[in-house]
């Protein structure tokens, strides 16, 4: 149930992202509100729940970006695993750690998509390295806006949190 709710939140955020980018700059820059969602499930969800949510969010990215099916779904799960590995190696509790990881996740998603699309697309339609500044800008902005996504994800998490009777806090 929780992965489904997280995917639904991702859908709402994706719509919000498209509309806000239209009003703020008209698309001159881009930002990924969904990368922080994947990072959050990587840091806080279980293996199966988190992977399902990450795949769902990746699917939403696939649909909205118009990329061939499976590209961002797979990359979403990969980013989830990387976030999980990072959480195991380093203690990421603060907002700044989350923001940095979200920025890196956005960069990972876009560079992964670029590499895979280069590998499969026709040479004349393959994305080039000219997109690199735009990808770095997207990562930087994602890093900043992830701090606005974090409370939403926490609140959603709280809705599914059950108090265990007798547990000392």
């Amino acid at each position: 149930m929780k992965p489904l709710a997280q995917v639904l939140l991702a859908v709402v955020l994706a719509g919000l992202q498209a509309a806000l980018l239209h009003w703020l700059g008209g698309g001159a820059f881009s930002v990924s509100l969904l990368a922080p969602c994947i990072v959050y499930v990587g840091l806080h969800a279980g293996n199966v729940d988190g992977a399902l949510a990450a795949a769902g969010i990746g699917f939403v990215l696939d649909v909205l970006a118009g990329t061939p099916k499976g590209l961002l779904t797979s990359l979403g799960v990969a980013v989830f695993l990387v976030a999980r590995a990072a959480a195991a190696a380093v203690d990421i509790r603060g907002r700044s750690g989350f923001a940095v990881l979200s920025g890196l996740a956005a960069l990972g998603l876009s560079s992964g998509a670029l590499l895979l699309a280069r590998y499969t697309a026709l040479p004349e339609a393959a994305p080039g390295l000219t997109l690199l500044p735009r990808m770095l800008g997207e990562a930087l902005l994602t890093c900043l806006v992830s701090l606005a996504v974090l409370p939403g994800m926490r609140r959603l998490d709280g809705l599914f949190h059950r108090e265990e009777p007798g547990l000392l806090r």
Partner: protein
Amino acid sequence: MFALLRRYRDLLLVAALLVVPLGVFFANAKKASERSSLDRAVLWLTTPVERAVAWTVTGSLEAWHGYVALRHVREQNVELRHELTRLQVERQQLLSDRSEAERLRRLLSFEEAAPMRTYLGAKVIGVRLGPTGLQLVTIDRGSADGVARMMPVVVADGVVGRVHAVDGHAADVLVLTDRNSSIAVRVERTRARANVRGLGKPDACKLDYALRAEDVIEGDALVTSGTDGVFPGGLPVGRVTQLRKSANGLFQEGTVIPGVDVTRVEEVLVITSAERAPEALPAALAPGAAK
């Protein structure tokens, strides 16, 4: 065996979620993607959010412009009246010029009938110009309004793109700067043929397939040639810049600055039909003419 599967069930599931979509991607990467009902459901959920944000922002802006920003309106009003008088005089002059041009055109028989295009106005409600996927803008008109795939989308400054996917009340427009967009064009000055292909970023396109021998210079205006089956001829596309001729090769290369800044588009026109009246054959070629 089952015990082993049960033991590594979580790991296998995560691996499947990673590998299966990748397989699906490689299997379908070179096919044109069609939207499934699940895709449409996702987009159906995002459209109201985009509309709600558009409504809120427009409402706030209207409130601002309608009440708060009305200071100094009297002085502006006087200035605008003067401007209006001047423009009315210019308009009369232009109407007179147009009338003369019409008469000359009829005399020279260049064109018997005017193009009969029908347009549908639409508002941009969302943009997806990220580096990851397609360069799309979402408009608030869909199949219920008569919009269909591949219809050209334009503004007064020129081509915006073509309709990529349509839902009931919204449509995605693939803008001309997308990597998958290729528009057949002519150089307005010399009628030389070329293609304009997107680079995946909103401020520049690439000049493709312009033969070395063709007369193209920097600053040349490009218009649609009408030969790609999507865009009617004569629509402005952009201007040539950074033209390069390598020592060998068939083609010259260049960059095209699009006539339309896709990041600033607010309202667009969808060309819902671009039929032209059939042109009459010259008398000598008409069926039944004496040989």
